[in-house]
């Protein structure tokens, strides 16, 4: 399953929890954002989509194709919002650290989200994450396109 809906400038995706659909969601979002001609930091938003979808598909849904994952993309005057939700039990995001083991094999997902999102929030149960990334033109300091001016 991979369903795409566009309504009033919003992109809504509903898809099975598969790795292939992470790639398809990435492609659909890039196409949508390019069509809106907004000054989006595409690399930053793609990282956020990739890490949010990876959490939802792999950790939240166990790559079970019978479980749905939804993603919403919406532009506002100053940035782009991205919300990803799965039906899994979620996780205790409050315990996740922004730091990571440089030599470790994992644990980079949450730090990447925090580095590239202007704002991010999980719901209480940890199965829904919302990102907001400001546009390039709204940024004023050098390096801000990579989240250094929060």
């Amino acid at each position, binding site marked *: 399953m991979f369903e795409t809906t566009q309504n009033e400038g919003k992109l809504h995706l509903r898809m099975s929890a598969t790795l292939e659909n992470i*790639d398809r969601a990435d492609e659909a979002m890039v196409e949508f954002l390019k069509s809106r001609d907004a000054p989006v930091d595409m*690399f930053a938003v793609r990282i956020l989509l990739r890490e949010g979808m990876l959490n939802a598909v*792999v950790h939240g849904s166990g790559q079970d194709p019978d479980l749905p994952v939804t993603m919403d993309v919406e532009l506002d005057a100053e940035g782009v919002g991205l919300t990803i939700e799965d039906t899994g039990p979620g996780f205790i995001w409050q315990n996740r650290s922004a730091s990571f083991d*440089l*030599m470790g094999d994992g644990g*980079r997902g949450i730090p990447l989200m925090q580095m590239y999102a202007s704002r991010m929030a999980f719901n209480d149960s940890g199965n829904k994450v919302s990102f907001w990334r400001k546009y390039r033109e709204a940024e004023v300091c050098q390096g801000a396109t990579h989240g250094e001016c929060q």
Partner: protein
Amino acid sequence: MTQTGATAEAFVVKPGRDIVISYVETFRRELLTLIDQGHLNLVIDLDGVSMIDSKGLAIFMLCYKSLSAKGGKLTVLTNDQDLRYLFKVMRMDEMFTVTESL
């Protein structure tokens, strides 16, 4: 299929596609096979790569650790500023060389 080729001093690996979760297992096997074959001076050329996710980054660290354990060396080749910044903020450029040219 990852393109590979040898220079006088190094073995160049060119995945030519995004290094993300749907591809990392294939890429991991290819890199470890090359290391097992004795290619201990590896260059990963990121031409054609526009995205690396957290699982992809982990493969670079695995490759770096495998090479280091055998006295080898990893070099990442890219002139993409977003990818160069990604390696910088994840402090991987402290482990191996990330350069625009050899």
